[in-house]
């Protein structure tokens, strides 16, 4: 049985999650026996130095990569043993994604990109919800535009809107503001926060930027594939000092 079943609001969790890349001598342990729970309606930031395993953790949680050992539970079902088809269906129906770059299909309009997961599923998107999302991320007037007609910030907001459009259980974001200028970056993060607070979404975001992380309810620090610290509602200063502490060792 799920070990953390007592947390009623746990949405996704990792149990003894280990990820090793490569063969014997040249192998790299990207994740080293990680145990972690993520709660519903929370905005969690995963931080850590470069190469600490942030992306790997996100990919494993999101069903984009397979753990070498350990389990991933979505609610109380183990998704680490699913086949490609089943995983794909989970990604489509239960998860949303915002990547650092190349988030949108260049031949589709913003609106088509936003409804893409629903279209792939052959479902009619919930238009009331989509409208609400689109208003929240403030791109209503750019819907008929193609990605190359949008600014970087707008593109990321469209991506965020797409990630939310299917009312997923969890939204995964890998350095979503990494390529943006500070103004667009702030706008995006404000929207993401409001999505969690107002639309009751759950976001797990990888970032190395303490400012970005300061928008989160919780910050998990990784180092060498292990959880180094876990901060609840930290301020930006607390985060910076923690990051500095980690990189000093």
């Amino acid at each position, binding site marked *: 049985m799920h070990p953390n079943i007592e947390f009623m609001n746990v949405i996704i969790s990792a149990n003894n999650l280990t990820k090793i890349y490569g063969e014997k001598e040249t192998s790299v342990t990207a994740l080293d026996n990680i145990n972690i729970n993520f709660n519903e309606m929370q905005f969690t930031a995963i931080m850590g130095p470069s190469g600490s395993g942030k992306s790997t953790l996100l990919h494993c949680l999101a069903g984009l990569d397979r753990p070498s050992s350990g389990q991933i539970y979505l609610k109380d079902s183990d998704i680490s043993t699913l086949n490609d088809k089943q995983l794909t269906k989970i990604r489509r129906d239960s998860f949303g994604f915002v*990547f650092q770059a190349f988030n949108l299909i260049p031949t*589709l309009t913003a609106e088509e990109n936003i409804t*893409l997961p629903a279209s792939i599923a052959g479902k009619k998107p919930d238009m009331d919800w989509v409208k609400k999302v689109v208003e929240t991320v403030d791109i209503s007037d750019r819907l008929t535009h193609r990605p190359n007609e949008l600014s970087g910030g707008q593109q990321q907001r469209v991506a965020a809107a797409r990630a939310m459009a299917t009312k997923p259980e969890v939204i995964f974001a890998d350095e979503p503001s990494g390529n943006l200028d500070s103004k667009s970056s702030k706008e995006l993060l404000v929207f993401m926060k409001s999505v969690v607070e107002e639309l009751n979404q759950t976001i797990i975001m990888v970032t190395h930027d303490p400012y970005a992380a300061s928008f989160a309810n919780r910050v998990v620090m990784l180092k060498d594939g292990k959880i180094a610290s876990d901060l609840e509602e930290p301020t930006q200063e607390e985060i910076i000092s923690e990051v500095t502490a980690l990189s000093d060792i």
Partner: protein
Amino acid sequence: MFGFTKRPLFLIAWKNLKTYPVRIFLTTSSIILGVAVIIASNIFSESNKSAFDNLFIGIYEGVDLVVQPIQEDFAQGFSGDGGQGPVSFEVKKIPDEKIQEIQNLPSVKAAWGDVLGYAQYIKFGDRKDCHSLSEECPRETILVQNGFAPTFGAAWDNNPYAAQWSLVEGKPPTNIREVVMDVLTAENHDFAVGDKVTVLAGATPATFTISGIAEFANVGSPGGATFALFDFTTAQKLLDSTGKVDLINVVVENNYDVNEVKEQIASLDSENLNVINAQEAAAEQADSIKQGLDFFNTILNVFAGIAIFVGAFIIQNTFRILLLQRTKELSLLRALGTSKRQIYRLVISESLFMSIVGSGLGIGLGIGLAVAVKEGLQYFEFGLPEGPLVLTTEAALVGLAIGVTVTILSSLLPARKASQVSPMEAIRDSISTPKGKSLFIRLIFGTLISTIGFGMLFGVLFEFLDLPTLSSLQQVGFGAGIIFIGISVITPSITKPFVFIFEKFYNLIFGILGKLATENSKRTPRRTASTASALMIGLTLISLANVITTSFKAQAETLISEVILADYQVSAANVFASPGIPTGLSEELLELDEVTKLSRTRATVVGYNQRPLILGAVDETVFDLVKTDDIEGSREGFLKKDTIGILKQTAEREGLSVGDEVLLTIPEEGEKGFTVSYIFDWTTQPPAEFFVLLENSSFFSDESLDTELYFNVYEKTPELEEKINSIVDGYPGVAIRDEDGLVEEANNQIQLLLNVIYGFLSISIFVALFGITNTLSLSVYERTREIGLMRAIGTYRKQIRRMIFIESSIIAIFGAALGTGLGIFFAWSLIQTLADDGFTVFSVSISQTFLWIGISIIAGVVAAILPAIRASRQNILEAISYE
């Protein structure tokens, strides 16, 4: 580090090819095929030529001179292509006495005659179902033939000096009841020594005993013909040569000069005898057969040309694609200081390597193909002479040269483009698709070219432009060619509008995948278009062939129902296999009460103005049974004695009108004058050009064969049909058809031709497949990230594959639709041009058209299998990672 190699780029080129053998295959696949067809056709024809040379040299081995009769002037060059069916052609022969005369010359060691004519072996099948118990039920007669080869009868010669035929089994024919059969026919049709066999030679079939089975100069039978070999006098009697021979073989005494003897014999009767050296005779006979093979060879070469033409498109496309995939590598070379010129040379030297490898493979494949063709023909009992396959150095070099030239030429443009890659490209992260020059310029340029083509084509159709030196057919052909080139130039500019047409439809059926696929094909219109063009070529030719033949079929159908007014038509079952219809048949038919009207047609070759023409003799009733149109004069006039009727075209050509005198040279009758009384149009294939009434012309009365019969019956009933059939069954080699039968027969012949053409043109579709595979591979490669992203957000592998299939189908439909449209249009133009020659029906077979579009789409999907699998297996993380 490259210090010890003077040519680092050459080395890179070589390494590249060694590392990516698949590239060589993809790029050169079309060249391999094209070269293979060229080589195969060449080997095939060369081998047969040499085999036929040997065969005919074999025939005349031991013979020094051949004595032939000199034919009447008008008949010269007429033999062999009588064309219109069985015409009793009065060939001059040599009287028997001449053999003795020649033999008596002291310089002649031996002289003997040859007789050759039509003879048809007949087998009887099972008794047909028949209802009447009292009568004897007729059995089905089967005309024995090897493939489509002719059927001959000849004299068995057991001359000690030269044996053309040698016995494999049994003994020579010694009396009027015996025949020797060629071994090919015996094997194909299961005959053995001692069997009884029916042979139709002349008018009446007779039964013989097979006394022996013989082979001809080491082959079963020359050219696959069936041979019935009789003893000399029997052969003369059966083959309409009583007391005569077709030629005389002469062996010269050892101590005489052959050329002197030649003069000697010629001087015996220089008016009637022509003496030639045996080698010459062999070469002459071999040549006439080789010409037939040349025609076959030409057809094969045309198809090889098409394959290579399509191949050029694909090579160019593939090169562009491969180079695009290597943009990074090339730009790195540029960044390291390689000049544009050097990059250009790098690419060209790669294409040189590839072309040599490709052409080499093509030659190898060609040899295999030739073996297959030979085996295939043997399987179908064509009886080609045995002999080794000959690949001349010349042919191999030509194949190599064509392969190399086409490949290099096709790589010039892509190489130029590659050399222009910016050194910065290496540093950029994204895989960029280069922006092409304006499609608008293409549109204008292409429109201009097509306009010229349309001008030429419509110039003929609407009679406003008639280019000198070109016939209207040529002008239309050239116009069509120019339109085709123009359209090829335009295609990239019309890709978007074209895709737009069925975008909505695709979105509706396939949802977002349809949308993505259509958007994708619009993204690189140039590439989509050039890939589609390769398919377009094949489909243009296929639909052209399809429409032309469908129209011909429809034409034949209307023609037959319009112009054959008779209920039944009787003719020789096979114009090569039987000499005509014995006159007894018409007599028997006329005895039936139900036969209300019957007309006979006979024909012979006569001389007019020193040229051969066919003179036909008809019954008056023919005008009620076959549709004819009065042009000048009257039918009543034609019924008078010593008058002649002339076909409209002939009258026009010869400048004859009613009342003119015509002087004809009639074999064995001499010159005879006629008054033109009637000029008319014979709306079907006319049996002759000049006509006389059968009852007025004594010189036709001793003919024992009719060429055609038409007759009407009181009422068509199954019982009557059976009665008629049982009468006709008594005349083997004669076929009876009603209207449906005629239509069916015409259709079958046209369909057979069409199928052969389809077979060859499928090669071009096959070649186009490789182009689609290449294009899609690139498209998938370029969209690595896009596809990865789609997978990440929950697109099934199956859906990714489907998307690629849809994209492929768009390319295929684009090419197929353009090709089909062009083909139909060209066919229409062609038929309009031929309107004056009597082609009036334009008919498109919708089912065949859609069949081929369907085949193209399926081909497109098949071509997409590999790229689709590759796309769906793409590693998601690699695609989305950003470092």
